[in-house]
C-alpha cells in the first residue's frame, strides 16, 4: 500500500488480448483462463475489449512483416504503465517458424516484454503463475 499506483496495478490488472498471428491454440487457452474453472477474476483480472482500458497486453504468436506495425500500434495505444506478457513459445523466440520468409524475429527486438510463459500452448495454470510472477517483480 506504500505506493498506491503500484498497488492498484497489482490488484486490478485488466488484460487485452493481442492475437498476433498465433496458431490459435494459445488464444483458446487464454479463453480457458476466463472460464469458471480457473476464475481469474479472483485476482481482479478482467478481459477488456479495448487497449485503452488495458494494463497488460497478452501477446501470442510470431511477429511477421504484416502484423509488426499493428502490434506496435496497439502497444502505443495502451495507456502507460502497462505490462506485456508473452504467451507461448512463439513469443519467447521464433519457434518452428524460424526460417519462414516473412518472420521478422523475436518480440524483444521491438517490445519490452515483462514475462515469457513458455509452452506450446502453455497450460492456464502456468499462465496464472506467469502473471503472478510478473506482478511480484514490479
Amino acid at each position: 500500500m506504500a505506493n498506491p499506483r503500484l498497488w492498484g496495478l497489482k490488484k486490478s490488472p485488466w488484460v487485452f488480448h493481442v492475437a498476433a498471428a498465433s496458431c490459435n491454440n494459445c488464444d483458446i487457452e487464454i479463453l480457458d483462463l476466463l472460464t469458471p474453472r480457473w476464475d481469474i477474476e479472483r485476482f481482479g483480472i478482467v478481459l477488456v475489449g479495448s487497449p485503452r482500458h488495458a494494463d497488460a497486453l497478452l501477446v501470442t504468436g510470431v511477429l511477421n512483416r504484416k502484423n509488426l506495425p499493428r502490434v506496435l500500434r496497439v502497444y502505443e495505444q495502451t495507456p502507460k504503465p502497462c505490462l506485456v506478457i508473452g504467451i507461448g513459445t512463439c513469443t519467447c523466440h521464433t519457434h518452428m517458424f524460424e526460417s519462414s520468409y516473412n518472420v521478422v524475429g523475436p518480440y524483444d527486438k521491438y517490445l519490452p516484454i515483462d514475462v515469457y510463459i513458455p509452452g506450446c500452448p502453455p497450460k492456464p495454470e502456468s499462465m496464472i503463475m506467469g502473471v503472478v510472477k510478473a506482478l511480484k517483480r514490479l
Partner: protein
Amino acid sequence: MNIVRILFSYIIFPGFIFSAVVGLFLTWIDRKVTARIHWRVGPPWFQPYADFLKLLLKETIIPEGSSKTLFFLGPLLGLVGMSILAVMLFSMNFYPAGSFVGDIIVIIYLLALPPIGIIIGGSASKNPLASVGASREMTQYFAYELPFLIVLATIILKAGGSIKFGDIVLAQQVQGPFLYSISGVIAAVVILLCVQAKLSFVPFDIPEAEQEIMAGPYIEYSGVALAIYKVTRAMMLFLLPLFLISILWGGFADWWAIPKFLLIIVLIVLMKNTNPRLRIDQALKFFWVGLGILSIIGLVLAFYGL
C-alpha cells in the same frame, strides 16, 4: 456557513463521495453475486476501489482529432447529475415538508444527464465503434423514456396531482405506499425494467455490447475519464433503487428501506444474469409497444383509483 453546508452536502454526504463509496460497494455485490451464479469465487471486496484507484493514477489518452472539451464534458455531466440527484433524494426523504422545492421534473432531467454525457463522449471520441454505441444509447434512451414518463405521470396522479417530490413522499406516509395497489404493481414492474435499461445492464446493455462493439462509447476512454464513467455507473446503481423506493415504496427514511433496497438490487442482478441481450430494434419495440401499453393501463387504473 450556509455555503459550507451546501458544499458539504453536494460533495461529501450524501452527494459525491458518500454515494460513490456505497455505489462502488454495490458493484462489488453485483460482481460477487454474478460470480456465485457462475459457480466461481469472485473478486475480493476491495476490487472496485482498487479498479478506481488504478484508473485515477493511469495515463489519460485523448484521441487524436477529437474535441478535448467535449471528450471530458461527457463523463463530467453524468457525475454532476448523479451528485445533485443524491442530495435531492436524501433531503426530500428526510425532510419532505422542508423548504427545498425539488420537483419530479428536475429529477427527470437529472436522470437524463448520464445518457447525454455518454452520447456526447461517445460521439466526441472519433471512433466508429463509439459512434455506433452513442447512436444506440440515444435510441435506447428514447425507448425507455416513454414508459418511464407515463409511470411518473401515474405516480403524480396518485399523489393528488402534485409534482413536488416531498409531497409524493408525504402522500405515501399518509395513505400507505403506492406499490400496494394494482396500478402500483404495474408501475413497479415497468419502472424496474426502465431502471435496468438506465443502468445498461443485460438484457439492455445494447450500447456497450462487449461482444459486438467492445465497450461502445467508452472505447476510447482511459485513466481518469474512464474512472469517472465507472463511478457514475456505480452511483446510478445506488441512486436508482433509492428513487424507486421513494416514489413507490414509501420513502427510505426508516430502517425498512434496507431490506427493500437489497431486494431490488438482487432482482436487478438476477435479471442481469439470466437474460440474453436484446437487439436495439427489439428493445425499442419492447419498451414502446409492450411496456408502453402496460404503463397506459396502469395510468387508467390509477385514474379510477385502483
